[in-house]
Every structure is written in structure tokens, then in C-alpha cells.
């Protein structure tokens, strides 16, 4: 096969200019290396963050509200009437999700779906003359385990003990510290209705998020209904589905059916997910810029070789080499630089990742020192390599084409 001849010529010509070859290889390698490092950090943290979003909260939460205010009956009766009603108030309705028991039952029938009725509200937890206001969630411990991370983040006790203890409460590590409230202590819980109840701490969790660790408590659903004075009422149905990516369509289906607002985790975190898109765009722009510089390096060396090898090109053509053979020789040189740069870049990228993985730093809102969560998959290497090869081919194309346009007569006549 002829490409082997082209390859051997290409290699021989590059080997004769080792320093310049090395410089352009390094240019590509740095581009690939930095791409791998940044891309792995970016996608690692994105995955980690999404994972947390998905795990820390239900995939879908049905709330006892409606997306749009109810339409006034008069507009329903005369949709095209020339009437304007001002200062109307939507009809008051009893808060809570109607028939939540039946709905939870129905959802739970579907395979892989976990649904839980919950009642949330605000309370004050008092202990040793100190007050902390908190969000309370009345839940079902058997199901909450699967919906959020709380159970796996328990430091002491467990959600299950809510069931075995009369008037039990699960609090976060932050609240425990603030109030000096420890396991089995009796806290005073004050509801907005004025109701006061003494509850026993049966579990302390630590999820690493200050807001939750200081301000979230869990009780049994029926206890919440008593505390908040909402007997037989639930204001949320919390749902986990088999594939979190389906949450949006799943939620839309439920909302269309029951009317209640159903929020998917994507909807709740739309702004953050949007930020990821922007972040990725920035990463790719920077890497593209590095690659453009690397491509100029390749363009430079191939152009120089072509200029210097005009006599060799002319003699090969006079021997009977086709124009494309000549183009191939220089394209191969570009690709060789690309491949060498890619391989070296993989090494550099891997080294950078090893170094980055040892870093630790403090993040506001997180109680522990954090490290980068890295994407160790082959993906960044593959994409970086593709970038490098594409840049190499594009950069070598023009000088290689110029080489194929050399007219042997011009060169040979000039040399004679």
C-alpha cells in the first residue's frame, strides 16, 4: 500500500526537524492536557452536583397549589365577552391535596415508583431557653428513606425510631449543636397555632448542608397534622421514579391529570442546570482557543517543511507520484503531530488530574473541606484526542494542498 511509503517519507522529514516538531507536539499536548483536566473537573462536579440534587430531594413534588390562578366563572361563561373584572380574588379553597391517600396508593402501584404523602410547615424548636425556627416535615419513615439522603446521613438514631417512639423528632447536627440538644433529650416544639408539644430526639442527621442541618426537622405525618392543626391533610406528595431523567415528563403528566402543581427536580433547579450549560460553553471556548493556537503550530511546521521540500516534491512528481500522494505525505505529518500531541496530552491530562485530586478547599455553605469531584472516565480523553486530530488535519490541509500544487517543471528549471 502506498500510504506506507507516504508514512515513511513523512516520518523521515519530521525526524529531520526534531526541535520544531517537538514544539508543535507540545502545543497540541498542552491543549489536550488542559482540556482533559478542565473538562474532567467540570463534568465531575456537574455530575456530583446533579447527583446530589437528585438524591437529596424527591424527583417530583406535587404541591397543594395551582400553576395559574383559577379563572373567574364569568370568563368561563363568556370567553369573548367585553368585560373586565377588577380586584377579584380567586375563590378560597381548603389547602391540602384532596384524596392524597388514594393518589399515593395509585402512584405506588407503578413499578419502581415510591410515593409519600407529607405535610410541611414552620415551627419553633426550643431547648434550654434557646429558640430555633425550623421547617418541619411530617413524613413516612419507611418511604422517606428512599426519597432523600437523610436516612443514610444519620449520625445517631434513625428515621424508623419515629414509629416506635411516641412524639419523636429527628433533627440536624447544626440544630443539635446550636441548642445543645442531644439524643433522647426532650425538646419543646411550638407551632404557629400556639400548640406546644414536648418531643423526644430520636435521630440526628448530618447532610453537610448548613440550611438543612440547622433548620430541618422530621416528625411522623400524623404528628405534623396535629402540630400544624391540619387533621387529615397533606400538602405534598413526594415521588421517586426509576429514571430521574424522566422526571419532567412524569411531572407534566401528573399535573395535567390532577391539576396540582407537580415540580420536577429539573424545574426546581432550572437556574443551576442553566449555569452548567454556560459553564460548559466557557470550557469549550477556552479549549478551542488553545487548540487554535496549537493548530497554528502545526500549520507553521507543515508550511515550513513544504517550502523546504519543494525540490523533493518536484522530483517525486517527475518520477510519477500523483498530486494526492504528495498531499498525503504532508497530511500524514500533520496527523502524526496531532497523534503525538494527543498521546503526550493524555499523559499531561492524567498528571494534572492526579495533582488536582489531592487538592482540598473550603466552600461556603459546606461544613467539610471539599475536594474536586473528578470525572475519571475516558470521555474527556476521547474528546480531547478528537479535538487534537481534527485541529491537526485542518491545520495541515492547506500547506499539504499547496504542496500538491507544486509544478515540477518550475522547480527543476529553477534549480538547473
Amino acid at each position, binding site marked *: 500500500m502506498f500510504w506506507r511509503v507516504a508514512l515513511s517519507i513523512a516520518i523521515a522529514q519530521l525526524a*529531520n526537524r526534531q526541535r520544531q516538531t517537538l514544539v508543535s507536539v507540545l502545543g497540541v499536548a498542552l491543549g489536550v492536557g488542559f482540556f482533559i483536566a478542565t473538562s474532567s473537573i467540570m463534568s465531575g462536579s456537574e455530575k456530583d452536583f446533579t447527583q446530589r440534587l437528585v438524591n437529596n430531594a424527591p424527583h417530583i413534588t406535587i404541591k397543594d397549589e395551582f400553576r395559574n390562578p383559577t379563572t373567574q366563572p364569568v370568563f368561563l361563561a363568556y370567553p369573548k365577552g367585553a368585560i373586565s373584572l377588577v380586584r377579584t380574588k380567586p375563590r378560597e379553597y381548603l389547602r391540602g391535596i384532596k384524596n392524597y391517600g388514594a393518589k399515593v396508593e395509585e402512584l405506588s402501584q407503578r413499578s419502581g415508583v415510591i410515593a409519600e404523602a407529607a405535610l410541611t410547615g414552620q415551627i419553633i424548636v426550643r431547648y434550654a431557653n434557646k429558640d430555633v425556627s425550623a421547617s418541619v416535615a411530617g413524613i413516612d419513615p419507611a418511604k422517606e428513606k428512599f426519597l432523600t439522603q437523610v436516612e443514610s446521613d444519620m449520625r445517631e438514631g434513625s428515621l424508623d425510631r419515629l414509629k416506635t417512639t411516641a412524639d419523636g423528632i429527628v433533627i440536624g447536627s447544626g440544630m443539635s449543636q446550636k441548642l445543645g440538644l442531644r439524643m433522647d433529650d426532650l425538646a419543646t416544639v411550638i407551632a404557629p397555632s400556639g400548640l406546644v408539644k414536648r418531643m423526644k430526639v430520636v435521630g440526628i442527621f448530618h447532610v453537610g448542608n448548613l440550611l438543612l442541618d440547622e433548620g430541618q426537622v422530621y416528625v411522623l405525618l400524623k404528628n405534623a397534622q396535629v402540630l400544624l392543626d391540619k387533621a387529615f391533610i397533606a400538602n405534598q406528595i413526594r415521588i421517586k421514579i426509576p429514571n430521574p431523567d424522566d422526571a419532567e415528563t412524569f411531572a407534566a403528566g401528573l399535573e395535567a391529570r390532577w391539576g396540582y402543581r407537580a415540580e420536577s427536580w429539573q424545574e426546581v433547579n432550572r437556574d443551576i442546570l442553566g449555569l452548567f450549560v454556560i459553564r460548559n460553553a466557557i470550557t469549550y471556548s477556552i479549549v478551542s482557543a488553545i487548540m487554535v493556537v496549537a493548530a497554528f503550530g502545526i500549520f507553521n511546521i507543515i508550511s515550513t517543511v513544504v517550502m523546504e521540500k519543494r525540490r523533493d516534491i518536484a522530483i517525486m512528481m517527475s518520477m510519477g507520484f500523483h*498530486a494526492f500522494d504528495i498531499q498525503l505525505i504532508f497530511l500524514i505529518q500533520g496527523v502524526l503531530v496531532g497523534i503525538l500531541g494527543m498521546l503526550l496530552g493524555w499523559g499531561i491530562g492524567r498528571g494534572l488530574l492526579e495533582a488536582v485530586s489531592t487538592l482540598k478547599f473550603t466552600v461556603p455553605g459546606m461544613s467539610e473541606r471539599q475536594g474536586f469531584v473528578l470525572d475519571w472516565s475516558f470521555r474527556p480523553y476521547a474528546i480531547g484526542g478528537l479535538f487534537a486530530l481534527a485541529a491537526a488535519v485542518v491545520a495541515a490541509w492547506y500547506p499539504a494542498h499547496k504542496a500538491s500544487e507544486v509544478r515540477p517543471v518550475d522547480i*527543476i528549471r529553477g534549480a538547473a
Partner: protein
Amino acid sequence: MVVETRGVTRILQEAVPVTLVRDIDLSVRKGEFVSITGPSGSGKSSLLYLLGLLDVPTEGEVMIDGQPTNGLDANALAAIRLRKIGFVFQFHFLLPEFDVLQNIMLPMRRLGTLSESEMRERGMTLLAGLEMADQTTKRPDQLSGGQRQRVAIARALANDPLILLADEPTGNLDSKNSKIVRDIFARLVSEQGRTVIAVTHETDFAAATQRNVHLVDGRIVKDERRS
């Protein structure tokens, strides 16, 4: 006829058109040893490039081995050069990155009909015939001018061409090496029956050929055979 031209004219379309050669009618039989002579700038090289299909005529026709070449594209012309034509120039034009044997094998590799060992063997035979068998692994820059020119001749013979075209092949050599190269061409004709057309300005060289074509101002003014 191995090479035949009919009314070949080559005009460069510059601001002031330059006529390189005009109305060339030339037929060369197999086994002929032809010298092309003429004053400097008379169009000798231009004619040789046309005969070797490196350049195409503005008018007229060049036929190689009976095959008309008008209208063939660059790749088709290259294919004919690869199989049927070998060039030797005043400068050796060897690829500096490759050793002697690799340089000679290059046209064979492009043709791709021989195996690696066959190519090697043929290269060695060609070099041995030119008394260069002991130089196969040397690089061009380790050779003398005469040796390089012999390697260039071996390379021109690599694919066993019908026609060997040489443009002042001894122009750069001292008299001793000139004689060696001249004798090689003579032997290629007498012993192997090859067709050689050589541009030269050396009377010794021209005298060694059987036929002399003399150019003045791009026209053939004399075409004589000697017995």
C-alpha cells in the same frame, strides 16, 4: 516509435508570451541514443520536459510508445511517467532523509508491483551494474557528485522504463566522472537496448551518441544520424 512528436509548440502565456519550442517533429526509435544540443536558452530542457510529459504542449501532440497523450489529466500523465519514463537531471535530487537503496526503491514502491524483497534485490542489481554495490546504506550527502549521479541513474531505471531522459547529466561533474556517466548511458543503449535522450552541451558526450538533434531558438535546425 518510442517517442514521437507532431508539430509540438510550447508557448508560455506571460505578459509577453514566451515561445519555448516551436514546430517540433521528432521520432525516436527504441534503442536509439539521441543527444540534444544547442546554445543556452535554445529550448533543450523545455523540449525534454515535453517529451517526458512533465509539461504539455500548447499545440501539437506527444506520443509515448504509440499512445497519444493529449487531453490526459495530471494523474494519467504521472502514471505514464511512473512506468515508462526515467529522468536524470543536472542535479541529483535524491531525498536526503533516505539512504541510497531506499532512494532507488521509491519509484518501485509507488508502482507497487514488486514485493519488498524483490524491490531490494532489483535495487541491489541496479547499483551493482553501476559499480555502487558497496554504497547502498550511505546517505546522499556521504557520496561524491559522480556517485550521486549514478544513484540518480539507478533510480531513473528503477521501474525499467522505456525511455531515459537526461538533462545535462554531466553538467555538474568533473571530466573523469563525466566519462563514467557517459559510458553508463552508452552501455545502457548497447547492452540493454534502452532508449536514451540526453541534453548536453559537451561535444564529447554528443560525439558518443548515434544521433544528434540541434536546436536554435526553439526549433530543430539539424537532426543527423551517425553510423
